């Protein structure tokens, strides 16, 4: 490489960096501003849902989520009652979760769901230990989410192209363009 070419080459990185002075910064000021999560986003914490009509919890204590969990962080016991099963203990050690959504996928009653909001930071391990109360509180707070056992299983069970049919299950799938 000639001397002049080297000098010109040296100017090229400078041109790139200086050009960034005239652009908007890429980063956002995180605690003040959030990047909006998409509909399917599952980076957040967990919640247990309840039936909106009867107010009963949806979990039937079948322990399928406990068995499929790769990190083995869910503990469920069956509380057998005359009408159906309920969860006796339901604990989730959120700090060790790897967000694979398998527990949500296997749930036959859409009881366990994942939040669309980012998981809140915490000061102690105990804060990440989600017992049934916390999970139900989360479930109330997060409202309706896209990913649940029935949507995921419906996606797999479809024999035809599922994208148009899945639209009602994912109400906002279209509007998220950017």
């Amino acid at each position: 490489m000639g001397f002049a070419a080297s000098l010109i080459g040296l100017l090229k990185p400078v041109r790139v960096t200086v050009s960034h002075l005239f652009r908007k910064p890429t980063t956002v000021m995180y605690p003040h501003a959030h990047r909006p999560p998409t509909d399917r986003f599952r980076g957040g914490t967990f919640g247990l849902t309840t039936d909106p009509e009867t107010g009963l919890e949806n979990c039937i204590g079948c322990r399928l989520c406990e068995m499929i969990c790769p990190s083995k962080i869910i503990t469920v016991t069956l509380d057998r009652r005359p009408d159906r099963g309920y969860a006796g203990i339901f604990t989730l050690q959120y700090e060790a979760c790897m967000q694979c959504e398998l527990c949500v996928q296997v749930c036959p009653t859409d009881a366990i769901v994942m939040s669309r909001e980012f998981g809140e930071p915490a000061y102690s391990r105990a804060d990440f230990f989600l017992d049934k109360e916390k999970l139900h509180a989360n479930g109330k707070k997060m409202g309706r989410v896209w990913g649940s056992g029935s949507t995921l299983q419906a996606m797999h069970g479809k024999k035809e192209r599922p994208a148009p049919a899945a639209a009602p299950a994912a109400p906002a799938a279209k509007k998220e363009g950017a």
Partner: protein
Amino acid sequence: MSAADASATAPGALPTVEVAPGDLLALAQRYLSEGFRWYICTTGIESAEGLEVQHFLRNPESGGEIVLRVKLDALAPKLPSLYPVFPGADWSEREAWEMLGIEFEGHPGLRRLLLPAQWDGFPLRKSYPIATPCLPYRPAAEKPAAAVVPAPSPIPAGEAT
């Protein structure tokens, strides 16, 4: 023995030749001269059939694949190292040695690769205990009762009947 003898059962299975430990180096050399120059990996397995080592070679030109399968004595698993033929076997054999206790004769330095030097036992053996030393976390003291008492809050007491 050649690639033609190799048998495959499952669609994902590879053409395999069984070879006695004593013939391994000569056979590997022959495959090398036939063009199987691309060393892929060495796998040590312990299954119901006992211990075995599989060396996986590939021919970069034709794409041909061959697995050299060496069945080993369960009590004194020992076979010649492939390192003199394929230098890539160095690390893979060290790994098989430390994980399964398979002795590779002629290897330039069989020492621990992934595990700490003072590790005891061969972790990938089926006999190696998987007892987890750390119990699942349970928050202490403050509210042990809340976690144990099966009191599903959203259910009114009378409704269960």
